[in-house]
């Protein structure tokens, strides 16, 4: 399916490497996930994990940003934003949960593996694992609501972890912190907390560290690819070298990558939705009159609405990625215009995706709801993304802060 022909985004932004990677991943999506989903549904062990392994290790996605001399793909420049948007969109077409896990993984990597913030020592340290034979996924532990009204907060939203400085670095503590994904399977966590002078910082934490404990996996709406569980940290020690970034601008820069890649995951889910409803609309006959479903004016009107949202989702995603990929033109990822564009891209893409998928289910009626037709899993996934990544009201305030120069919120 030539989605570019259907929903054009400015192809001039994409380089050969982006297109070639996207094609490879598109083939992976069809062969490793889509071909197996009727039989295996969302089975983690039988379908999703093997597919992730293939993608991350065999195709080598997880080490894409690492320098070639360390065994990686050598793509650690801001241009990677375009590559990742194109790739994660295709992953999302296969499974939006895997795409979401990748968004976490690469957002974390963006903090230390991409120019001008390359941390050679850390890259070197992690290279054997990341460029090795096992899938390595990461997860973010971001600010969230809290029962404690006095908790330190990032723009009003409490951090889930607290960091205490001592001579040797930091001691992290958290009680039942909710990771964005994969609490029970991530190799590394990026933990947001308040550092010196209450400046935000992101700390790299691994689950094998002393004082780190993982709760029972909990049941949730979607994202079968993410086995999630709450995390508790009792004085987990982190050296200064584990502090991936400090300061509001750097934190917003990392989040800009995260939101953009999550937008790409939503866009991918919409491509999958497109394939499903396209086939339904082409083959179904209604009104007992031999009217092909899609040729009914009311159906067509909704299809137009759905297609418009798909086009918009792609445009928002690739535009945000473009802004990230060219800091020389648009400023750093954490600058207010770029970071805000990423927030808007995610929020509007996720909302549009939910609307388009809801409308699609309305067209397919019960079939939209039945596992067999494959649509409902994307619908559950994207809804999970929409609520977990960034609560609506928080996003709205983020946008208003930049556009209207808020001082207090």
């Amino acid at each position: 399916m030539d989605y570019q022909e259907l929903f054009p985004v400015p192809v001039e932004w994409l380089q050969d490497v982006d297109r070639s990677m996207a094609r490879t991943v598109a083939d992976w999506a069809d062969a490793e996930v889509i071909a197996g989903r009727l039989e295996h549904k969302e089975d983690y062990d039988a379908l999703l994990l093997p597919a992730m392994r293939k993608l991350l290790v065999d195709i080598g996605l997880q080490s894409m940003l690492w320098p070639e001399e360390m065994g990686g793909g050598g793509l650690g420049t801001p241009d990677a934003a375009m590559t990742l948007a194109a790739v994660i969109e295709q992953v999302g077409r296969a499974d939006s949960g895997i795409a979401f896990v990748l968004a976490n993984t690469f957002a974390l990597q963006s903090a230390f593996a991409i120019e001008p913030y390359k941390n050679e020592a850390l890259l070197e340290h992690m290279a054997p694992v990341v460029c090795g034979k096992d899938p390595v996924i990461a997860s973010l532990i971001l600010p969230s609501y809290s029962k404690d009204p006095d908790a330190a907060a990032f723009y009003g939203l409490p951090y889930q972890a607290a960091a205490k400085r001592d001579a040797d670095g930091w001691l992290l503590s958290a009680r039942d912190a909710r990771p964005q994904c994969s609490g029970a399977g991530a190799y590394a966590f990026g933990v947001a907390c308040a550092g010196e002078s209450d400046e935000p910082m992101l700390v790299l934490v691994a689950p094998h560290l002393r004082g780190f404990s993982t709760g029972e996996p909990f049941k949730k709406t979607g994202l079968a690819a993410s086995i999630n569980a709450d995390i508790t940290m009792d004085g987990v020690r982190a050296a200064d070298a584990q502090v991936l970034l400090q300061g509001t601008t750097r934190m917003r820069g990392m989040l800009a990558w995260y939101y953009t890649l999550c937008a790409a995951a939503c866009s991918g889910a919409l491509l999958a939705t497109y394939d499903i409803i396209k086939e339904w609309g082409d083959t179904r006959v209604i009104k007992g009159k031999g009217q092909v479903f899609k040729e009914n004016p009311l159906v067509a009107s909704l299809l137009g609405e759905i297609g418009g949202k798909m086009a918009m989702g792609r445009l928002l995603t690739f535009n945000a990625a473009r802004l990230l990929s060219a800091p020389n033109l648009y400023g750093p990822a954490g600058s207010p215009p770029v970071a805000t564009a990423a927030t808007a891209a995610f929020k509007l893409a996720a909302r549009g995706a939910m609307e388009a998928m809801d409308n699609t289910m309305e067209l397919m009626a019960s079939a939209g709801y039945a596992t067999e037709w494959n649509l409902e899993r994307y619908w559950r996934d994207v809804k999970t993304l929409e609520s977990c990544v960034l609560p609506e009201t928080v996003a709205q305030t983020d946008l208003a802060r930049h556009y209207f120069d808020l001082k207090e919120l």
Partner: protein
Amino acid sequence: MRTIDDFTRPLEYLAPVDKHLGDIVRAWAEREVMPYRRQYDEDWEAHRLIEPAFRSLMGELGFQRMLFPEDVGGWGFGHSGYTATIACRAFEEIARADSGMAVAFGVLFWPLVMICNEPHVNRRLCEELAPMFCDTTAPCFAANAMTEPQGGADIENMEIVGGSTIETTAVLDGDEWVINGHKLWPTNSGGVADLFGVVCTTKAGSRDLDDFAFIFVPAKNPGCTQSGPYQKAGMAADKNGDIWFEDCRVPSWYRAHGPGLDAMYFKEVISFGNMGSTAFVVGALMNVYEILKDFCTEQTYRGKPLKENDDIAGVLADFARDIDICRILAYQCARMIDRPDLYGERWSDEIVAKGRGYKYFACDRAVEDLKKAMNIMGAHGSDRLWDVEKHWRDVKIVQLWMGGKQLCQMEVARWFYECETL
């Protein structure tokens, strides 16, 4: 301290037994459903947890007898003048706990509406079928076998297709109907139903509504087979599957009423479905109101409980407002069914069309509101611990069933604008 009972109902409409029955159902739901519902998703196929709750409500408390005349062992609500209003309350209370369960419960009465409701009680069939429901403490389910593989809810689109797309046939052979056809998707299929109301035609391809037939078929009859349940995004208590009728025979008087009348009274089934759907949605929303109130009081943002943040309060307000509105509509819809003397026959095009309007309105609002509720809850919007995501998944199917939104729109347009070719 505000509770769900503070949402508006037109008090003038309530049945004298409203409080009594409502209290019973609420106690049952809080005792036998709400503590277990979080595990229902995994119980979709076996119904190990779900069946006992049905047994208690339907069989032991006896709610499955509601519609039958008293003298055949029922509670006689079919001639009470409050049939729909009572049902509305019961549906709300059940759906507050689990809307899949409410749908399964509601649909049990769907075929019975054809024969138990004044002024068109079919005494002979009531007597014949009542024992299945009234002489037992086991739950007894019924289902309307309507949808067919090609064209889906086209069956319900009677104005435009006039029954001509129905491929399930009933042929009279002596004093028996011989039924052949393939149905799918009805609530309480997938092996659950003991009795089907089968929408079929006595003359394949005919647009003459005299050929539209509604025939009762006990599920254990030879020639009637059911598939196992489909797996769905939610609503585990409502099983759906395929049903095949192969030379399936029933007595000739198992047809509800006969030529013309079957088609006419079948619209009353639609009216009850509209009212029920609206009530299901209200029940689910009321439960989410309770949950949201707890969540937004307990969790903080900007150093304050969520509900004290004006932006979040704005979303909470819309949520409460919509419940209040949908609840009024559910009871208005019920009242219009209960009082044909004031509002016209419950099978009239007007009552059907208006009910479709309330139904799709309530469903659309509910889906939107639940999406926003999940967004407010952030990382907890999608975990099962809070049950909001469950209601969201469940309510979506209420929106999709009965032909979905587009069919509702066409019926409303036809009635209000006198469209002739839709």
